[in-house]
């Protein structure tokens, strides 16, 4: 068990308060991508950051923003390290993060909490067991998929059949 010092907790909060470069309504803490902060003395800090998608281009912007925020707080030497394990999941988005997504017009990812290492819930030979995606505008569960990939890899484009509005859905990962 690694203990977190009060300084580390404070710096973690600062790093976590950085807004996500692609979805600025969310902080990195709400997105669940800042894993840990390790302080060596008061001047040298290492931050563990995990990517949402392996190829997520935002990771470099996130790293720079974290470095900037910690420098502004007086930390001289900041290293942001990318960690893959455990793999990020949309289940890591906080309840507050989900609420903000919804408010922003993006249907939040459904909670999976699957047991077993690799959930196979997609595709023609597999069945989708998750509850329906609800329209973030009117709350209707009667929505259809328009495209599996929207403006970014993490979103799909759907349309509400009740209010007819198209909307983005943050896909489960």
């Amino acid at each position, binding site marked *: 068990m690694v203990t977190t010092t009060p300084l580390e907790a404070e710096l973690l909060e600062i790093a976590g308060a950085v807004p996500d470069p692609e979805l600025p309504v969310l902080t990195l803490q709400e997105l669940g991508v800042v894993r840990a902060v390790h302080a060596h003395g008061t001047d040298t800090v290492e931050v563990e950051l995990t990517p949402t998608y392996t190829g997520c281009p935002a990771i470099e912007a996130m790293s720079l923003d974290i470095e900037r925020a910690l420098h502004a707080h007086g930390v001289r030497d900041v290293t942001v390290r990318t960690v893959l394990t455990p793999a990020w999941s949309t289940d890591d988005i906080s309840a507050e993060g989900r609420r903000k997504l919804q408010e922003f017009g993006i249907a939040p990812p459904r909670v999976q909490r699957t047991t077993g290492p690799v959930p196979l819930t997609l595709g*023609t030979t597999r069945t989708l067991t998750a509850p329906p995606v609800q329209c973030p505008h009117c709350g209707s569960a009667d929505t259809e998929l*328009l495209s599996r990939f*929207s403006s970014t890899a993490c979103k799909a484009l759907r349309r509400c059949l009740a209010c007819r509005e198209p909307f983005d859905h943050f896909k489960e990962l």
Partner: protein
Amino acid sequence: MTADMTLDATTRTAALALGDDALVLSHRLGEWAGHAPVLEEEVALANIALDLLGQARVLLSMVGDEDELAYLREERAFRNLQLVEQPNGDFAHTIARQLYFSTYQHLLYAELAAAEGPFAPLAAKAVKEVAYHRDHAEQWTLRLGDGTDESRERMRRACGALWRFTGEMFQPVAGLDVDGTALEAAWLASVTAVLDRATLPVPEGPRTGAWAAGAGRQGLHTESFGRMLAEMQHLHRSHPGASW
């Protein structure tokens, strides 16, 4: 980034094979930019290409400098499957290539994720991304196969044309601790089920002919790969050190 010397040589060889698969297919899919049949597909293929590029970067970083590996190697030093280097052809060809490869990659990564080996961290992450690639390919196969006469005929032709490149996926790769026979059986069952549902025939003919003399994993590539590589490496070789 320099090679991860804590990894043994066979692990690095395997990382090169998997990394080259992802890199080369990513580049092929990128060639659709500006040419995809509809805007949604343009975005979808670009997103799949980006996922693959991310995987390639992680894998190639296990071997050495990712830029050097991508841009300064000769054709014979690439270890990717011949399947992924096949030209895009029409949209049906691209979808058939996606169906064959993403089904393989999804099954393979699921197995690597469940094992404790050096590929588990990446595989655990990538398997969830690849699940969407596989779903995308399966849905398009159904739509084109069970579509118009024209789309069905094109999809049938594409599945048939790429069939001979599918055997190579199940050849043993040193450093990859997977049961090739079981992987092949699972792949065949899945692809057969999708083709059945799409009212497409399972192609006949050998799945091995193309690589009888050794293939992509041994550095032997098909004709169009050289041209693809020239295009991919041209900028970097002309402007060494330029960043993007």
